[in-house]
């Protein structure tokens, strides 16, 4: 083996070693969470990479709690409502901001971007007052409202950028065919904006699904809580025991829908959907 081949081999080996290292660092916490979820509570603090006595007891335990099932239902309700409302408002707003020429369009866009810069804690007390005034305290409606407020700027920005990329002649062709703006949006733009909608919708869903601070602040009773809060408030046999194993089992359960959603929609997130619209 010449020295040139040797150095080439070393470079390749180094590269793959680095890849392996990055993968381990990224994946290990998740692996350990899954592993812990199958470990009986008594074995929790024995350091091992593979559960020697795997059990489903933790899963049985969390699913036997009514409040946890209720929390999952609440999370699904809140997250899907947020996605639906954010996309509906986002699409219509992006049409106005991306396609209609009006005075102050840039300022509106900048304000929208500015709003999304505020940290959640900064608006927490103000938002709390708003939600109480609207009589939405301890109600999924309050969470839907507050999550939508935080998701919408991002949704509008992404969809506006995407809307601007759609050829102007496409809209004009629709106008010549007698389409109203609403028909143009729903029949012409919407089918072309699937990739952007899948991306933003998915991110909105993840944000709403995982949100903790608002969910903790704006709900009071077990029946109104969402999953992240419910997991955090899982209690063990006594005040001195933190039930790690059931917490990990619950975390795995609520992560699975997200993974499934990403896998379903990743095929939608493909470019080239507008291919064939313009040019030869």
């Amino acid at each position, binding site marked *: 083996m010449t020295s040139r081949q040797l150095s080439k081999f070393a470079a390749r080996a180094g590269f793959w070693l680095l890849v392996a290292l990055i993968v381990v660092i990224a994946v290990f916490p998740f692996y350990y969470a899954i592993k812990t979820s199958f470990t009986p509570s008594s074995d929790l603090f024995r350091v091992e990479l593979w559960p020697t006595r795997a059990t489903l007891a933790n899963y049985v335990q969390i699913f036997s709690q009514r409040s946890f099932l209720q929390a999952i239902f609440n999370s699904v309700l809140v997250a899907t409502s947020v996605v639906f409302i954010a996309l509906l408002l986002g699409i219509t707003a992006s049409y106005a901001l991306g396609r209609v020429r009006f005075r102050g369009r840039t300022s509106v866009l900048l304000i929208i971007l500015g709003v999304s810069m505020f940290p959640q804690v900064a608006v927490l007390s103000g938002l709390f007052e708003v939600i109480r005034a609207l009589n939405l305290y301890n109600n999924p409606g309050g969470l839907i409202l507050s999550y939508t407020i935080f998701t919408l700027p991002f949704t509008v920005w992404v969809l506006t950028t995407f809307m601007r990329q759609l*050829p102007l*002649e*496409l809209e*004009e*062709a*629709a*106008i*010549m*065919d*007698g*389409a109203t703006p609403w*028909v143009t949006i729903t*029949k*012409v733009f919407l*089918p*072309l904006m699937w990739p952007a909608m899948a991306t933003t919708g998915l991110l909105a869903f993840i944000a709403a699904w995982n949100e903790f601070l608002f969910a903790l602040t704006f709900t009071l009773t077990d029946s109104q809580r969402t999953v992240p809060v419910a997991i955090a408030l899982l209690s063990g046999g006594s005040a001195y025991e933190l039930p790690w194993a059931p917490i990990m089992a619950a975390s795995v359960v609520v992560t699975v829908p997200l993974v499934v959603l990403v896998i379903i929609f990743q095929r939608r997130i493909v470019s080239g*959907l*507008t*291919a*064939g*619209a*313009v*040019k*030869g």
Partner: protein
Amino acid sequence: MASVTLDKINKVFGSTHIIKDVDLAIGEGEFVVFVGPSGCGKSTLLRLIAGLESITDGELSIGNQVVNELPPRERGVGMVFQSYALYPHMTVYENMAFGLKLAKTAKETVHERVMATARILQLEELLERKPKALSGGQRQRVAMGRAMAREPRILLFDEPLSNLDASLRVQMRNEIARLHKRLGSTMVYVTHDQVEAMTLADKIVVLNGGRVEQVGSPQELYQRPATKFVAGFIGSPTMNFLPARLIGADATGCRVGATGLSELTLPQDASGHAQGEELTLGIRPEHLRLTQAQGSEGFEIVNVEYLGNEVYVYLEPKEGETLLIQRGEAPTAWRVGQRVTLVPDPEHVHLFDAGGQALSVTAARAVA
């Protein structure tokens, strides 16, 4: 089918005045081509007729109806876009049916019309395809089909062939010409390509800087351009322009001198112009003859282009930068570096005044 009348149409975008007092009458079933350099306002004028832009001032009528305030769908116009702008997620059939469905046409009628349009444009095989599975020429035909399916009174084309390659362009040009003969509908066509304009039009409208320079049949524009701009724009290779002086004028014509040429007696009426006035002499390449010059007289040949059926001879001008062109039959004996004198055909010489307006032929000569 309908006529279109433009009466003092103006369009202002912010502080730019794009269309200036355009008057135009388009007859029923006519094929009218708007032609001009880029930025002359030809596309804007088409979009004003379509209703995609609002008219700042003036009156636009289709048929006998003033349509200034009507939205595009109520004007009864169909438009073919430069980039085709087909709906990429719909099949060819759905693309053509879209407008009809929006107009709440009965299902059977929609089917009937789409099929009839598809038959005319030979799209029957492609009805289930998506635009991305079509070739450039096929997309072009679908775009025309979509515009035609609603049976509009006027069909508008916005540079429809500029995305196609040269051979396909010639083929589609023919198809459009035959389509117009078969349908007999009023068509307005925008292009910057004067060959398309000459071959397709019943009537050409030459636009320059938002104004109509001249309206006329291809023959009229070629043989009797009203302005120097039209003379230079129509025809390929372009007309030669030479600075000239007026020597004298009478009832039957005038005498003109130009550097490097012998004195010419022309049929143009120059009675309104002073002796010695600067004029521009225009002569098309095919109306020039070359003869051998003596010594350092005449013009030097700087290039000879052999095109098979004809030859372009390029000559160094006495003044200015633009080379003079002579077009003759192939083969030719002229070689680069030879000196020649130009012999124009007086019947085909054009004269333009300082403002670019053509001098018309005297009454005495026009009759003869």
